[in-house]
């Protein structure tokens, strides 16, 4: 825990997150809001959700089929990085090369619809979440300067 507490990770859990998590869990038919908090936080504050839970990623991905994303989640710094430009689409899911040799199984971008940004009115900010699963075999992953995305329309 000492290492975790010393990591540069911003921990959030305000009312906006709670409200959004409630909506996400309700929308996805989940029994608890635990996983929904991660999805909600991604909607509100982040570009990607990184999870090792394939089932969760699949559920998030499945939810994306209900609504298409309205804008690209491409990182602002473009598509260059540690040789990470390679990406290919495989239907809804794709494999994306990150780092040097590691492979991340990437589930396509999903949009969970209109969300409440922290400090914003409901519906003012239409956000999107991307989930991808770290393969079990991956023991060392370097998140590149920019992560190759699996965006609809990119081939």
């Amino acid at each position, binding site marked *: *825990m*000492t*290492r*975790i*507490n010393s*990591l*540069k*990770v*911003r*921990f*959030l*859990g305000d009312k906006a*997150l709670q409200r959004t*998590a409630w909506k996400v869990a309700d929308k996805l038919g989940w029994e608890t809001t*635990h996983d929904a*908090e*991660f999805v*909600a*936080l*991604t909607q509100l*504050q*982040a*570009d*990607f*959700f*990184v*999870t*090792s*839970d394939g089932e*969760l990623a699949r559920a998030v991905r499945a939810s994306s089929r209900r609504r298409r994303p309205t804008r690209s989640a491409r*990182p*602002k*710094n473009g598509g260059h990085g540690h040789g990470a430009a390679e990406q290919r689409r495989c239907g809804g899911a794709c494999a994306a090369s990150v780092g040097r040799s590691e492979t991340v199984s990437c589930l396509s971008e999903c949009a969970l619809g209109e969300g409440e940004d922290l400090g914003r009115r409901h519906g003012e900010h239409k956000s999107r979440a991307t989930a991808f699963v*770290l393969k079990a075999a991956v*023991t*060392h*992953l*370097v*998140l*590149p*300067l*920019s*992560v190759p995305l699996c965006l609809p329309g990119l081939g």
Partner: protein
Amino acid sequence: MTRFVVDCETLLGIAAGEIEVAAEHKLLAPTLVRSQALAALFEAARRGEISAGEGSSGDTD
């Protein structure tokens, strides 16, 4: 800068040095992940996979 929300296992992987994160990235997590991480470390200690010292925050008795 790309903002990533990380789950408990990912967070533990980062803490263990198994996952490297470029300095340009920003990591976020819901506060509940700290409880999940504590529970995961406690369970690992109970299974004998790590020592109690490795799992705890080190500032408890």
